[in-house]
């Protein structure tokens, strides 16, 4: 269950940001997950609820934003967006060799807080 480690890491970032902004509660968070990150949104949501319980983020609304990752075809150089699963022929030349252009992984983008 590495979703649990990820939920804990996300909560640590949120708590640090909340402290910096003197927030009393975290009401909502927007987390971006790109296709290179190997996480299951439903599992993240379940773990997130558990790790937030009892703290300033208890009951916080989790908004997961799934983003694609850029891929570059090694045959024709065409760049396109790749979804989860990572296996897709190039839409232009059907080439199978793809290079993934560095995704952002998982990012805590913003939060709604109560001061």
């Amino acid at each position, binding site marked *: *269950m*590495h979703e*649990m*480690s*990820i939920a804990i*890491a*996300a909560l*640590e*970032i*949120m708590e640090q*940001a909340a402290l910096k*902004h003197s*927030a*009393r*509660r975290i*009401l909502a968070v927007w*987390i971006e997950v790109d296709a*290179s*990150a*190997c*996480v299951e949104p439903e599992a993240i949501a379940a773990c997130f609820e558990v790790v937030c319980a009892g703290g300033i983020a208890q009951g916080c609304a989790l908004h997961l934003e799934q983003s694609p990752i850029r891929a570059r075809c*090694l045959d024709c150089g065409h760049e396109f967006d790749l979804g989860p*699963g*990572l*296996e897709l022929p190039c839409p232009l030349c059907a080439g*199978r*060799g*793809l290079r*993934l252009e560095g995704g*952002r*992984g*998982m*990012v*805590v*983008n*913003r*939060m*709604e*807080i*109560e*001061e």
Partner: protein
Amino acid sequence: MGKKSIIEVEAAVLGQNDRLAQSNREFFAQWGLLVLNLVSSPGSGKTTLLVETLGRLGQSRPCAVIEGDQETPNDAERIRAAGAPAFQINTGRGCHLDAAMVRRAAQNLPLERGGILFIENVGNLICPADFDLGEQAKVTLLSVTEGDDKPLKYPHMIAASRLMLINKIDLLPYVRFDPRLCAANARKINPRLEVLELSAYTGEGMDAWLEWLGRHPGFA
């Protein structure tokens, strides 16, 4: 009720692990070590591969091993019996090693300049893909009893790997597994992946693996 507001955070969730992994990389570079993160499903033969590899390398290149398992010190004991220092990490409920665990383990091992540090990750082809340990390369081990479509089922790990080892080829007469199809499936995801076939048990193909290790001198 206090005032509500939206704040921008823009922080990578695994940023802390990634920073520690980068620090590990610098630490390993000081020692000129080759550091390999060995990943597979449970039971693909990682520990047997390591034991046989250590036996063949002998005194030619100093090795140390970090063993990751949910429970038991068994694997570290097998490595020590093969003559190399080993540090066992038990992750309990955790399904992967992270950069902090590897740093602690590395500091507890007698490392030698120019040697090899093998990190045997927890048997799992999903979670370890997301956690950089500061290694030079991930090496995925598959065995022929697992199905030649496995690379397509676990694309994230294949995408993150430099080398794929197909183990237990001595069992090929008894299973429906096509190593060439397996390699082709893996290269659909990672066209630059290197693939070697071997049997750690009979020793077939081990020379090519040792030759691969020889071609990778370590962090400069």
